[in-house]
Structures are given as structure tokens and as C-alpha cells.
């Protein structure tokens, strides 16, 4: 009886999830075509537009975000695992990172709006990249730490025993051994911010035209999906589904990779 309830709960949960996936694949795939990746949005009411500017915009934003979030995050992860292990400071940093992860992304967006958009008096791709980059830091830091902790201690000893300076040993031995894990962790953080809309509303803003300038407002895939989803045209809805499918594909790939690395143990050879 009780087991029945648990099974029922599982089915109840799986059902909408499967529904979401089926809807996405069904509605998204039927709208994905070459135009989607190469054309600008068509004028209102016309068919055949694409999201090329949003894809390029997302690429610009994510490049900037990674340039900020990945190095800082990896460095913070290195500190947590290699220097601060077991210390009070690192416990507090780890805790703060976890809490920061829970701060709503719209709050981050407003904070960066106040920090960059207000003094610059202009929405910009730069502000959008900064907010996404900041959001990557805690995730990258925590996964990097986790992956570095999986590297056996004996390997660090081997490097130090050769008279290799600590910094070199950390970078060329410990980090390099954990590299597959660290990279997939970064990919996961990347995929997560790739789908963020709320923090971009008041930073990158959106832009109907081509733009790659960091000083101008820029379009992004999730922003475009948001606008199109709320719009009144079937053509827009179609594009919104297609855009969502692209985002989801990115996420499926990175989640699978992380899973592969952590469970199949690409790092196992190191043990």
C-alpha cells in the first residue's frame, strides 16, 4: 500500500517531466531549420525569421561570462581544496558559495544594473556578461573543489617530492589530473547561465538587430524566448519552442558529461 503510494508519486512526477520533453522535442524540432540559425527575426507577422542575432548575442554574453566566472571559480576551488582544506575560512567560503548559489538571479540582475548600467547610463552586453559571470563563480568553485578532492594525495606528494614548486604542482599535476571533471563542471555552470533570462532583463536588455559590441544592448536566446512566448503570433511561438530545444540540448549534453565523469570515473585511473 505504502509502496504503491511511492510508486504513484514517482509516476506523477515523471509524467509532467516526460510531457515537457515530448512537447519540447515535438514542437521544437519541427521548427528547427537552417533559417533558425542564420536569419534575423522576421518583421512582425511575417514567417521565416530566425534567431541568429540571439544566438550570436548569447555567444558573446557567455564568452564574457566564462572569461570572468571560470578563472575566478577555478582559483577559488583551488584555494578550497589545496590551501584551505579544513580551515575555518574555507568552510565559511564554501558555505557562502552555496548560499550565493541560492540568491535569485533577478536579484543579481538588479544589483549589476545598479553597479554598471546606472553609472554607464546604458544597457550593455558588458553588464549582461558580468552578471552571468558572477553567477558562474560559486558553481565553478564548488565543482572544481569537488573534482580536485578526488585526485589522490599520493600524486601531490610525488610532485612535491621531486622539488616541484607548490604552484606548479597544483596547476600541472593536481588540476591537470582533475581536468576532465573541472571542464565538465564549467560546462554545467555554462549551460545553467546560458538559460538565464531574469538577470539579463535589465542588463543586456535585448536587441532586435545584429550587435556584437559590448557597449550596446544585445539579444540573448532566453530573452528572445521570453518575448516570443508572450507574443501574439504563432510564428513567434514556434521560434520560442525551437530556441528552448537548443537550450535544452546544451543542458542535456553537459549534464550527461558531468554524470559520465563523476560516476564512470574518468578520474579512476588516477586512484
Amino acid at each position, binding site marked *: 500500500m505504502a509502496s504503491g503510494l511511492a510508486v504513484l508519486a514517482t509516476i506523477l512526477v515523471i509524467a509532467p517531466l516526460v510531457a515537457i520533453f515530448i512537447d519540447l522535442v515535438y514542437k521544437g524540432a519541427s521548427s528547427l531549420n537552417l533559417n533558425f540559425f542564420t536569419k534575423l527575426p522576421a518583421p512582425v507577422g511575417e514567417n521565416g525569421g530566425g534567431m541568429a542575432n540571439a544566438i550570436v548575442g548569447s555567444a558573446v554574453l557567455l564568452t564574457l561570462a566564462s572569461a570572468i566566472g571560470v578563472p575566478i571559480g577555478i582559483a577559488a576551488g583551488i584555494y578550497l581544496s589545496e590551501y584551505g582544506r579544513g580551515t575555518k575560512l574555507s568552510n565559511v567560503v564554501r558555505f557562502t558559495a552555496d548560499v550565493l548559489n541560492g540568491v535569485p538571479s533577478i536579484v543579481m540582475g538588479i544589483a549589476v544594473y545598479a553597479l554598471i548600467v546606472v553609472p554607464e547610463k546604458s544597457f550593455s552586453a558588458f553588464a549582461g556578461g558580468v552578471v552571468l559571470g558572477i553567477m558562474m563563480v560559486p558553481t565553478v568553485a564548488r565543482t572544481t573543489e569537488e573534482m580536485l578532492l578526488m585526485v589522490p594525495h599520493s600524486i601531490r606528494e610525488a610532485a612535491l617530492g621531486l622539488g616541484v614548486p607548490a604552484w606548479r604542482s597544483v596547476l600541472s599535476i593536481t588540476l591537470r589530473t582533475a581536468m576532465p571533471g573541472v571542464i565538465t563542471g564549467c560546462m554545467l555552470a555554462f549551460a545553467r547561465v546560458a538559460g538565464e533570462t531574469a538577470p539579463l532583463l535589465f542588463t543586456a536588455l535585448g536587441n532586435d538587430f545584429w550587435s556584437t559590441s559590448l557597449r550596446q544592448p544585445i539579444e540573448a536566446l532566453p530573452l528572445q524566448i521570453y518575448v516570443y*512566448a508572450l507574443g501574439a503570433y504563432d510564428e513567434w511561438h514556434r521560434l520560442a519552442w525551437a530556441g528552448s530545444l537548443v537550450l535544452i540540448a546544451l543542458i542535456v549534453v553537459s549534464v550527461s558529461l558531468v554524470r559520465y565523469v563523476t560516476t564512470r570515473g574518468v578520474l579512476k585511473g588516477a586512484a
Partner: protein
Amino acid sequence: MILRIQEPRTPKPADDEPIGGLVPVVVSPQASTVRTFLVSRGSSSIADSTFRWLMLLCALSIFAIVALIATELVTHSQITLAKFGWKFFLGSAWDPVNANFGALPFVYGTLVSSILALILAVPLAIGVAVFLTEMCPRALRGFLSFMTELLAAIPSVVYGLWAIFVLVPLLREHVDPLLIRLLGWTGLFAPPDFGIGMFAAGVILAIMILPIISSLTREVMTAVPHSQREAVLALGATRWEMIRMGVLRNARIGIVGSIILGLGRALGETMAVAMVIGSSPTISKSLLAPAATMASVIANEFAEASDDTYRSALIEIALALFLVTIVVNMFARLLVWAVTRGTPARVA
């Protein structure tokens, strides 16, 4: 201890028969080049300490980010902080035209939608976690936990899109009429019904936080030592009694922690909610009526906020959301850590 009985032997001459392809050792001239080079390398203590400080600096940047968010939000919400004080969160009039701002409808909307989400999600999430840890076949478990991870990573805006085109019509055509018929007398489900509104927001939030709660619950349940289960089983308990007393009871602090973590997520969830809640700064008894949450009002109105007071009011809402989610997350993390890593006292 003595594995091979063998007489201690005196050092054998170098031309003795070597074992295993051992070649006579010759000191190569490179040896000294190598040594000279290594000696010239110095201690690199400057590089080491620079590197260490750099890593520390990046770790500390996490504090800096939190501090930066806090100061930016506080300085840019000065106008309404000064003008309305604490009453800001008690006033229910949201009237941008006359610069009169009370955030109560949004606080109410946030609380109600989140609680609704928890009511819907928690029993299901715990059911799923029990299923996954205690009775699921191994092969299926991997797939299901993979699905859970995936769902936790789907962007809010995609959930919103799905909700607009699939969930809301479904609620409007089938679920809401039923609720009105069965629970209409409570006044919580009263017409008019547009599909969008507080209830739809609660449902989509429930779907979004389910994976988070169930995967964390699963984690703390797995952390319950096997001996606890066996102890209960040894008393002659049935399987369900074992799960209830041996597992759930021992994991309850952690489960509460994961529920609160889910709450923290629901409180700040923006896009999906903004897309289906109907954006109305009103407090209505009916859950089918449009409403707004703290996060959704920022998303929906900030772009059109034309004057400083309006913007300040919205930023103050962001500040409140920031503080609330920080507190909720701290609390939840401490509870989860207490179960999965030992005492939280060291953490705090």
C-alpha cells in the same frame, strides 16, 4: 614475515649477472648539466606565495560578490527606504502613478505561491525519494536520478513557455472547473478563472522545485547508516515501518533542510512565475485570480519604471528578496550539512 629464506649476502661486484635486463650503470655527462640547471632554479618562494595569495583572493571574491550585491541594493533603494520605512512591506497600495508604494501584495503573492508549491511538491518529492532509495531497481535508479538532475537544470523560461502553452490550458479546461466544483465553498477556488493566476504559478513552481527537494532528500536518506535500518528490521518491523522509523525519522532534519532549500528556490523563482501569474498587484482570496510575486513584479515592471521612486521601490523589493533567500538558504544548508557532513557548528 620471512618470505624468502636467503643468506645475507655481501655486496656483489658490479659485473655480477644482472636480473631482469639490468644494464650496467654509467654516469652520463648530462647528469651534471641537469644538476647545475636545477641548482640554478632557486626556491621560487615568491611565485609560490603570489600564487597562494591569488587563489585566496579569488576565494574571498565570493564574499565580495555578496557584499557588492548588498551595498548596491541598499544604496539604490534609499528613496523608498527613507520615505516609507518598514511600512513599505505593510502597505497594500501599489500605485506608481501617485508614487505610493506598498509591497504587501507581492509579499503575499510570494508566500502563497511558494507555500502552494511546497504543499504540492513535498509529498511527491518524498515519495519519489523513498522509491528511489528503498525500492527502485538499480537500472531504473540511474535513469531517474539522471532525469532529476536534468530537470533541475532546465531554464526557468522554458518551464514558463511550457506552462503557457500546455499547463495553463490544461488547468483551465480540466483541473480548475473540478476544483471550483469540489472546493468552491472554501472561497479559495472561485470564478472568474483565466487559467493564469496564483494557482498556475504554484503548480509550475511545484514542478520546478520537485527535483531539488527529491534529490536532496535522497541524499540525506542515503546518508542514514545501514545499521539504523537493520536495527528497526530486527525488531520485526515491516518494510514500510522500517522506512518510516529507520530512515525517514533519522533523516528528518535533512529532509526539512531540503524542503527549506526548495522553498528558497521557490521564493526567488522569476521567469516561469512572471509568465503565468497574471501580474496583478492585488490580494485576492481566490487562488485562481491573477496575482504577483516579489520576483515577478520586478521582472514585469522594472523596464517601464520611469521615475526614481518607482525604481527604488522595485530595488527595495529585490533587497528584501535577497535578505530572505540568504536567510532561508543559510538555514537550509546548515540543516542539510548537519546530516550529510557532521556537525554544523564548525560550519557557522
